């Protein structure tokens, strides 16, 4: 009897260990992604360009007032002569840079005449690479911040030329292109999914044609996404190039690829939603003299609205996470100008691009992963909430 109890408890403990390790797995993913990525996560990352831009220029005028120290953080060096605060920081690629932390509105740095024409106002966040002086040695970024500070503060130095960088590494482009993809894909796949779902739920007879159609759609969900990527590459890109102003891979082709991937899921879930609308609703509508088209439009579709919304959230989650199919269609080269007819990677593809680079940029990749995880979590919770509302409100 003791042996049996031992066996039983071993089995139970094993199941417990399993579930704990699954929980541990989730914790590990979140811990890793957040610990690596949270350091870079800030608003500037989300709004700044990926490509760094360099500027060379000099002050437009030599008249400027005296400046007061605005009491900055302790590691920031305030240069009284020019009214700027600079500090040593690490950029998104991990290099040490000299960054403008504070620029006085009256500072000469707000009005720089650029060498190739035009003018520039230095803002905080930009970095200082080199300052050349008249008849004195230039101060370089690589010589460290103390050298730069003393060179700038020296009253005998007159600035001849300045070189700045607007730092890159931002993910605005991938963020925008992901949003475009979500919008375009939903516009394509939702009508298709709802129409087909409505057909299967309301109009399809139980015959051979229906069964075959259903099976084919079901088979579509078994195709791996990389194969959809190949189709996007060989069929959808040429198709969009012919019918739109696009010249190569583009977001519309990406959205079409995603639509093909999502089609079976959207059809299945909307159909389920339509099926869940109670029979008596339809019967009442038909009894009042409405035909089946009217019943579908005014009873069935509104009745399934929350499940259509759930499907939409589900689809958004998939679009944000999809990488393999989009790598082929959108490429991995991050560009800053995002248009519907241009190619620009989504957030997930951006992660892949960062990780296949030599050496991989795990930190920035994790930051993007943090964003994806947060969005996915919010979507998941919204679905849960919706389902709860659905069960409480209607039936």
């Amino acid at each position: 009897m003791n042996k049996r109890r031992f066996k039983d408890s071993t089995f139970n403990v094993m199941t417990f260990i399993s579930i704990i390790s699954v929980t541990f797995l989730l914790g590990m993913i979140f811990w890793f992604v957040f610990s690596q990525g949270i350091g870079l996560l800030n608003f500037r990352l989300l709004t700044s360009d990926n490509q760094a831009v360099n500027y060379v220029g000099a002050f437009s005028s030599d008249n400027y007032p005296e400046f007061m120290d605005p009491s900055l953080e302790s590691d920031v060096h305030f240069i009284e002569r020019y009214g700027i605060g600079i500090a040593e920081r690490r950029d998104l690629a991990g290099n040490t840079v000299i960054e403008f932390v504070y620029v006085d509105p009256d500072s000469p740095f707000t009005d720089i005449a650029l060498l190739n024409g035009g003018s520039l106002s230095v803002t905080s966040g930009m970095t200082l690479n080199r300052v050349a002086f008249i008849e004195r040695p230039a101060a370089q970024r690589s010589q460290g911040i103390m050298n730069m500070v003393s060179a700038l503060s020296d009253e005998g130095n007159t600035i001849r030329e300045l070189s700045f960088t607007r730092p890159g590494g931002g993910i605005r482009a991938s963020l925008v292109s992901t949003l475009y993809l979500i919008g375009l894909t939903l516009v394509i796949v939702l009508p298709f999914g709802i129409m087909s779902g409505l057909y299967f739920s309301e109009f399809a007879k139980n015959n051979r044609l229906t069964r075959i159609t259903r099976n084919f759609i079901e088979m579509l969900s078994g195709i791996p996404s990389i194969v959809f990527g190949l189709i996007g590459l060989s069929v959808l890109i040429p198709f969009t190039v012919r019918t739109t102003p696009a010249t190569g891979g583009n977001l519309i082709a990406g959205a079409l690829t995603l639509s093909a991937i999502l089609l079976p899921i959207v059809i299945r879930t909307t159909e389920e939603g339509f099926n869940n609308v109670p029979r008596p609703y339809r019967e009442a509508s038909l009894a009042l003299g409405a035909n089946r088209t009217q019943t579908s439009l005014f009873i069935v579709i509104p009745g399934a609205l929350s499940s259509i919304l759930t499907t939409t959230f589900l689809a958004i989650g998939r679009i944000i996470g999809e990488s393999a199919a989009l790598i082929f269609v959108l490429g991995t080269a991050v560009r800053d100008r995002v248009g519907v007819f241009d190619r620009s990677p989504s957030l997930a593809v951006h992660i892949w691009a960062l990780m296949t680079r030599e050496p991989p940029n795990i930190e920035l990749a994790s930051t993007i992963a943090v964003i994806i995880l947060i969005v996915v979590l919010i979507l998941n919770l919204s679905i849960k909430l919706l389902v709860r509302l659905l069960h409480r409100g209607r039936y």
Partner: protein
Amino acid sequence: MKNNVIMSNLDKHTQRLLLLFSLFASSVIILIVFFIVTRGMLPFITDNDGLGRVSLFRFLTGTVWLRGATFVSTAYGAGFLVINTLYVVFLSLLISFPISILSALFIAKICPPRIAQMFRMVVEILTAIPSIIFGLVGAGFLLPIIYTLATTLGYRSNAGLGVLGVVIVLALMSIPTLTTISETAIRSVDRSLEEASYALGATRAQTNAKVVLISAKGGIFAATILAVGRALGEATAVSLVAGNAMSGPSFIPFDITATLTSMMLMGLHETSGIDYDIRFSLGIVLLAVIFIVNVTLNFIKKRVGDFGE
């Protein structure tokens, strides 16, 4: 009366319109297979810009992958990729299957409902995490650990890349799917079967192991088939930890490897020529592998399912 006629015609038109939509939706799969096959056949039937035809037999059985334009050769061998793919998916299943089934059993039968709800939530969130993030965690977190393990054991390791990483990443990715579907299957086991088992004097653990799991085996098998299909087709996460071996097959856990999908991602930058087309040939092989594995598993499921039900 006239109004009625229009209205009944309207229904017919609506039905036709909606039928058109669903016919289009179902034709997508045909289009996909058609385009992949026509494109993927090109390297075997054309001259490939003077490189000569790719030998189909060699392609299916070869153990070295030579990139055509670079090596001026058509000696593509995808045989080792097929073996690698099947090998890593099988090993990953060895890890994920027991963990998932036992977790599902714990959630469905053993723990109190309130805690079950919490664990269910954990699994749900895991299901929603995109594969690229599993790849990221694999590459950033697991590879250094595997590298340390390999060097302590005296193996040479290329930054931890290789079979073991792929197996673990695939296993982690299959766990949520397997657990969710198995749990549904376990919960739908007929209560009277369990009661019968208790009545015969079996303990709860015995009942869970020998009655519940056995009765739910149809659903568990279906979950396994789904998970295997996904693992076979997984691309980006695998490519981040595989190491892009150009020959194989690789069986040692610390050897670098390559799967069908990771090889397809490697030719990314080609836009024309044989290196472009050969990816579609790999696509055919991938679809064929998935199809054959699926049919085989379904066949086994039918044989196993018949017994005891």
